[in-house]
């Protein structure tokens, strides 16, 4: 475990979002198509989630999920050692990487050493975080995302807006235009036809790919098994057909045994898609064995730190419990209003607003903005299948922000708190406030515009200068 706290330097860097958050949020709010797409998606998620609540004792399952993840993160170093040993025993290669540069370098070197040119990817937030696609493309490799949503985004030149449903902000017509541009031909109408078109195009990729890159949802230390959860079947094809499989795993994804894995494997799809099983779960222990006719000849498990180990033992440790289900995104009134793209980070919504600044370092511009994109209503905590107190973490993250504006804010609140600690101070401040309000309100008794830091507050409303207002 590293000695640096969450304020220390962070190795993973995201590109700076080009415009400030307020501007990105305003643009998103002004986009009527986006609003409609997001509302539809959130409603369908809520319906599935409600159904799960009726079929299963969700509260009890959530409590057990929390216990499991708390234990996993507490025992992380030992679990990772055991995992590494078991994966090696099964014939796999394990590499631990500290940051995105090291991670990307490993894959590029591997591709060069094996003469690979085409990389097929299944959905992975960890590779999004280390910006693997960009690095591989710069190195002259062709990278194709094979999850339908991710492929759509790749064609659009965008990044995911949701952990589970990356292209949820685009509608059928927008998808059709992207597919038509990619294939250079007219496309039939309808959702089924679009899916069938993508199926055929991407089968060409599975047949030819040299390397398959996947993420890892969980890794089971006891047997050295990695677990890739999906609904489309592309992750199986990515991990079964190419001759090399590279699995990129955030270091906190490890669980101890199959009992824990079985519980989380049920909890994850309940929270993510409102079903008690995902369509496909691929459990992989080492590469292909002797006599087997499919599966990769080489399996490389890459365990990414990327700033995670520095969070253990801090007040932010609980972000490491996250199983990346996306439930806090759908449940968040902010995410539902602006979508994931406005966050300008691979992780959006409440978990992204906490995790991004922690992984990136609290000094970046984004770290000063993201924790404030929340109303602290707590819906994210309620939705979280492992009970992460996201609203508390957001408040703690806000307290860490050190831009001049926020420091000035903190001084003002400290002064206020100091004044109100004594009856005399309280009385004086009340008199001063009353006099000040009267002065500003003038004869009308209403303040149309406050000066200084109060100005934004009065942009949309008036303040009564006396009570009751006239």
């Amino acid at each position, binding site marked *: 475990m590293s000695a640096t706290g969450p304020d220390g330097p962070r190795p993973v860097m995201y590109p700076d979002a080009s415009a400030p958050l307020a501007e990105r949020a305003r643009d998103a709010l002004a986009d009527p198509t986006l609003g409609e797409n997001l509302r539809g998606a959130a409603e369908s998620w809520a319906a599935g989630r409600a159904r799960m609540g009726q079929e299963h004792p969700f509260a009890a399952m959530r409590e057990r999920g929390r216990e499991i993840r708390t234990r996993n993160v507490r025992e992380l170093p030992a679990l990772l050692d055991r995992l590494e040993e078991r994966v090696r025993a099964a014939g796999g290669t394990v590499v631990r990487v500290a940051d995105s540069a090291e991670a990307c370098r490993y894959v590029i070197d591997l591709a060069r050493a094996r003469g690979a040119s085409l990389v097929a990817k299944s959905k992975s937030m960890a590779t999004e975080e280390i910006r693997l696609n960009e690095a591989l493309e710069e190195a002259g490799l062709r990278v194709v995302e094979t999850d339908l949503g991710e492929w759509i985004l790749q064609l659009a030149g965008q990044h995911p807006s949701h952990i589970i449903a990356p*292209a*949820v902000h685009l509608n*059928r017509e927008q998808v059709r235009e992207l597919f038509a541009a990619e294939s250079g031909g007219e496309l039939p109408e309808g959702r089924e036809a679009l*899916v069938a078109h993508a199926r055929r195009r991407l089968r060409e990729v599975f047949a030819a790919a040299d390397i398959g890159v996947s993420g890892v949802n969980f890794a089971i230390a006891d047997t050295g098994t990695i677990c890739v959860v999906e*609904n489309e079947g592309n992750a*199986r094809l990515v991990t079964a057909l190419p001759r090399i499989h590279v699995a990129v795993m955030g270091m906190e994804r490890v669980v101890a045994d199959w009992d824990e894995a079985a519980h989380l494997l049920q909890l994850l799809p309940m929270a993510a898609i409102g079903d008690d*099983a995902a369509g496909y*779960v691929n459990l992989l222990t080492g590469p292909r064995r002797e006599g087997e*006719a499919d599966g990769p000849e080489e399996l490389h498990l890459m365990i990414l730190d990327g700033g995670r180990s520095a969070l253990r033992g801090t007040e932010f440790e609980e972000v490491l419990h996250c199983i990346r289900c996306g439930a806090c995104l759908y449940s968040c009134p902010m995410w539902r209003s602006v979508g994931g793209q406005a966050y300008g980070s691979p992780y959006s919504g409440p978990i992204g607003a906490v995790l991004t600044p922690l992984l990136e370092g609290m000094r970046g511009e984004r770290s000063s903005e993201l924790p404030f994109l929340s109303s602290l209503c707590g819906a994210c905590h309620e939705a979280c299948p492992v009970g992460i107190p996201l609203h508390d973490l957001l408040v703690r993250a806000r307290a860490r922000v050190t831009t001049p504006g926020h420091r000035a804010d903190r001084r003002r609140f400290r002064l206020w708190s100091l004044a109100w600690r004594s009856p005399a101070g309280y009385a004086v401040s009340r008199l001063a406030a009353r006099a000040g309000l009267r002065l500003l309100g003038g004869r009308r008794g209403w303040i149309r515009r406050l000066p200084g830091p109060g100005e934004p507050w009065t942009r949309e409303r008036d303040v009564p200068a006396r009570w009751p207002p006239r």
Partner: protein
Amino acid sequence: MAAEVAALAAGLLRKLEGRRASGEVVERRDAGAAAARVCGDWGVRRALLAGDPLLDDLGVSEALAGAGCEVLRWPDGRGLGWRELLGLEGPQDTCGVTVPLLGVAERGTLLLGTGPGHGRSIDVVSMRHLAVLPAERLRPTLAGALAEAYGGAGLPPSAVSLVSAPSRTSDIEKISTLGAHGSVSMHVLVVT
């Protein structure tokens, strides 16, 4: 069929049907005919069968060949190469026939094992997926089934696939659409 097994089979099929898969309980002697009927309904022209002797014992291989399907056995079928198996060349109306290691009633899940005779890609390279599950392989819970699959001495299996539905995507407008990459449809024959 014992009442307990019947309840497990009913639970498995009910859950699978909720995810737009289908299935039925058949007696041993009817398994071949049922497989041929399902593949006939799907218009299957080529079937890729797990190299499991059970499919011969149950008469599935014979019934499919008799119904006019080209029958490929794993691992021989791999000789065709991925482009053929993926349906990019040759017939596209393909069906993977698997013999699951275990079935889980609680969540409606099949555990497909891997070995020299059972490729890990059989069900997803094919357009359709037909699973032939002996009823005695049904288990009530996922935790129990996983403990059994990974409980043996020596190295655990190189790949186990949990399959609970046909291939689904909700990536376009959040509406569930079948056949994104894996099987467009999935049918389970629980054989008693």
